[in-house]
């Protein structure tokens, strides 16, 4: 139920945006993430953007392992 999907912001009007993924677009609320900008990737849950998605930071997860000394490769 806490499933959430990444979508890209196409247009913004006030506290509402049009977001799109795989050719499917949807109207979403920006009340929980008001600094969202066009072209941002966000995580959508129950019709609202709840978190900004940063693809580059995905790589940081692996760095975290190394930095923390948890992985030796």
């Amino acid at each position, binding site marked *: 139920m*806490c499933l959430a999907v990444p979508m890209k912001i196409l247009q913004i009007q006030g506290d509402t945006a049009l977001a799109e993924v795989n050719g499917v677009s949807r109207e979403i609320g920006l009340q929980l993430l008001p600094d969202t900008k066009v072209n941002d990737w966000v995580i959508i849950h*129950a019709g609202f953007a709840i978190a900004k998605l940063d693809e580059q*930071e995905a790589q940081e997860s692996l760095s975290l392992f190394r930095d923390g000394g948890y992985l030796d490769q």
Partner: protein
Amino acid sequence: MQNQRQQKNLISRLQTFPITSPTRVMEVCGTHTVAIHRQGIHHLLPPGVRLVSGPGCPVCVTPGNYIDEALFLARNGSIITTFGDLIRVPGHDGSLQTARSQGCDIRIVYSPLEAIQIAEKTEHDTVFLAVGFETTIPAIAATIMKAREKQIRRFSILTALRLVPPALLALLSGSSRIDGFLLPGHVSTIIGLEGYSILNRFQIPGVMSGFTPGDIISSLVLLLEIITKKRHDIVNNYRRAVRDQGNPLSRRLYKTVFQPEDACWRGIGVLPNSGLRLREEYRDFDARSRHSLPTSSTEDHPGCRCGEVLSGMIDPPQCELHGTICTPETPVGPCMVSTEGSCQAWYRFG
């Protein structure tokens, strides 16, 4: 290619992880449970490590009498709007699905905002079934604010909102031993690191994880590393989505609309300050204030062991009803009803 190699490395690292004493790890979130079973990740664990499911499936922990309240509203002329997950959960006298087949107006929505759009277009009373954890609660709070701004009078919510940290506290204070938590990724986007400060008190580590197989496997390896080093860090391993501080605006917003209350978790019991109700100034949107709802007590089937499943005490196949009289087609307990329930995940994927 590099990713594939990294993933293979991680799998072999998990499978061969040296464990010195029996270790129990709990995945809190129902979405993780399904991903783990669908991908067979529980078969990749090294000897000595057990992965148990937790109470992180909102539908599973919603008390049966909540469904009775929703059915009462539906049968007395309200339009019921709900996420699809709830529709098959049995109450005392049928489910929302059976009520719909009997002519009640029950509509599945993707967002609570759709519920107020429905309310705007109808003369009928419209109720949204507000079920969910911290991921969903801010969306519902924002919807309530929108309804107030638009002065929508025929709209209310029936709350069964639940908070994850009080459930973790109850688990850690109880009798089931847990050495570390795989923490729910999307709840974490809201509550952040600080939301899990309770784990520090018990010196239990946790890793916030995303939902791809790579996310889950890497989080399990990381968690085992922390456990075997006898540390109790809370680590953010879902950095592409989770900020360490979570989403403070979302938390402020839901605390403006809701206040904590003691709440019943199906199969577990009443946990202090683990639920939310609307604050006095938003009480016009409270279905329980607007309608006099019957109080009922729904008895779970005497053989149903969902409570033990939800607290990680047993695996679903240890329940005698599992796969015999309790199946996804004829569910007895809530963990078999929900697509994110661990009983259904075990039944479908093993």
